[in-house]
């Protein structure tokens, strides 16, 4: 969509006005300064999703819309998770689990561990599940972003 103030508001407003749910949302400028890319995850029947696409296309600032689930695509989400270091050996345990998930330790104090994990939403869910025996202090997840595989590209 056009990289203008109000554009994001309009998209979000559309969803709330029509009663569609936004599960996650991520927006940032693209390589073209005048355009921003918004990735949004929503759920609904085929008819509802079709309506959502049509309503989004009606918005003046929206340049192009695609439904990534129509193609083979890649999804990524990032998570920052802060854990409490309770005992000396939990450091090793946490580090081992993080390695298995190819996650990075980005902060360490004698009380806390902060880890950065990225991947599909399911991988992040699994990571939290794997850490469930530790004391999770804080979880921050970004919205999901996606891109189609192969030649298909979303361009203005």
């Amino acid at each position, binding site marked *: 969509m056009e990289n203008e103030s*109000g554009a994001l*508001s309009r998209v979000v*407003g559309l969803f709330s006005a029509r009663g569609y749910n936004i599960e996650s949302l991520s927006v940032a400028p693209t390589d073209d300064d005048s355009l921003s890319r918004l990735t949004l995850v929503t759920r609904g029947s085929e*008819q509802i999703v079709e*309506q959502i696409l049509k*309503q989004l*296309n*009606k918005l*003046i600032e929206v*340049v192009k819309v695609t439904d990534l689930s129509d193609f083979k695509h890649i999804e990524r989400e990032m998570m920052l998770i802060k854990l409490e270091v309770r005992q000396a050996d939990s450091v090793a345990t946490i580090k081992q689990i993080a390695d298995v998930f190819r996650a990075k330790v980005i902060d360490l104090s004698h009380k806390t561990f902060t880890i950065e994990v990225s991947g599909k939403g399911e991988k992040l869910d699994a990571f939290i599940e794997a850490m469930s025996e530790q004391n999770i202090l804080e979880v921050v997840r970004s919205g999901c972003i996606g891109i189609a595989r192969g030649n298909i590209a979303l361009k203005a």
Partner: protein
Amino acid sequence: MELSGAKIFVESLKAEGVDTIFGYPGGAVLFLYDELDKAAGELNHILVRHEQGAVHAAEGYAKSTNKVGVAIVTSGPGATNAVTGIADAYMDSVPLVVFTGQVPRALIGNDAFQEVDIIGITRPCVKHNFLVKNIEDLAATIKKAFYIAGSGRPGPVLIDIPKDITDGKEKIAFDYPDTVDIRSYNPNVKGNPRQIRLAATALLESKTPILYTGGGVILSDGAEQLTELARLLNFPVTNTLMGLGGYPATDPLFVGMLGMHGTYEANMAMHKSDLVVAIGSRFDDRVTGNIEKFCPNAKIIHVDIDPASISKNVKVDIPIVGDVKQVLTDLLVELKQRDEKPDEEALAEWWRQINEWRKTDCLKYEQGEDVITAQYVIDKYWQLTNGEAYVCSDVGQHQMWAAQYYKFDEPLRWINSGGLGTMGFGLPAAMGVQLAHPDAEVACITGDGSIQMCIQELATCTQYQLPINIISLNNGYLGMVRQWQEFFYQKRYSMSYMDSLPDFVKLAEAYGHVGLQIKDPADVEGALKQAIDDKKRLYFLDFITNPEENVYPMIPAGAGQNEMILV
């Protein structure tokens, strides 16, 4: 030549060919009004008495001409007063550009005096809105706004102008753009040829078809093409409330309005059809009744310029996205090329069935000697004006009777609030219509409830000497509410009785108009004639009508189109 923001505003409007603008001044728009004063004669400003009136008047102007209506209001309460009118235009797809004043840029977001976030407030009920942040953007923004308002599916566009942009401290060269290019907005006007061919085949193969036509026919100026199509194929035609006048109502192919208060034959024909051809209509809930029961055996063709309207409520078999006039023109070419006709025997049988349904005479009414029936007043008015008046309506029972009994043969004559159903719309809209058509007979059909909502506009009518005829069907109730309370709430008339009605005759006279109260059915014709013949003065006709009259037919909530209450 370098111009101030206010001068750019005026020059841009002139470049767009605007000659009339409706509005109400205030602090944030003082500089704009200063320039408007200097432009009087070329660009005429009509002063209303409430900002809601300004927007409704602009709507009346637009609805009766298909031009873009223009209104200007100040910031804060001026802007919020305009919201109802803007939402009304949004629901009925009326091309409108509304200018709102805004506090100076440095004060935005500071809870300043008369500041509201009108962009945020109107976002869900405009086609688009703009906040002008630099004087350099002003002309281009106005050009874009007019383009967006009048193209594709028309709609209201709001432009919020901070006061300091207009104050003349900054001046720039004025260059009104010739063209406008919005990469993300490109309405599809021409229908897909393959879809049109499929539609032509379906039309020729159908046995019990019906043309279900709506406001889109009027907005795209497609009445002529529709008339040609219907007559070529000999198909029955029905109109939605918004489509009245899109097909001549006195023509034998016309089976009446359909929907909640539509005719028996129109609703039955829809229900029993095998092909529903929706042209510029949107399968609104007032038309479909219970959607599960809607048109069970019909294939559906849908011609609409808005792709989001297609398959929104009802699954469509042959969608055609495009401008109605364009698509019908192409469809006619295709049909004439094929030189085939639909099954004549099947059609003859279909018409036999339709004429059988017509015998129900669902709109029959009785005018006795004691009390005036509203239907009689409308019927008489139609006769006396030869069906050629511009009829503006408020909302309620009177609106339904006006739609049922005034037979419109031409588009752009029936001016009402359909989608939002705004009481108070009638009088200001009539003002807009009269100003757009100074010599025409313009009526405002209203009720004792609706007329009180924007009654202050009687002063505007005096100031600009607008000889509108207000036909008030006074039954002492909020009629439509009372009807629902009678049918579904065991006659508990909660707050639907109009207590403390003013003496409308005295009220009209207080504003300098002619007021008449009519109680005797024998006086109805004379009063209407007097009002029609007097082209100089506004007549307020207060008809005292039967208090507990109901609008029939009616499709109650949850019922299918064939489950009408007839009497």
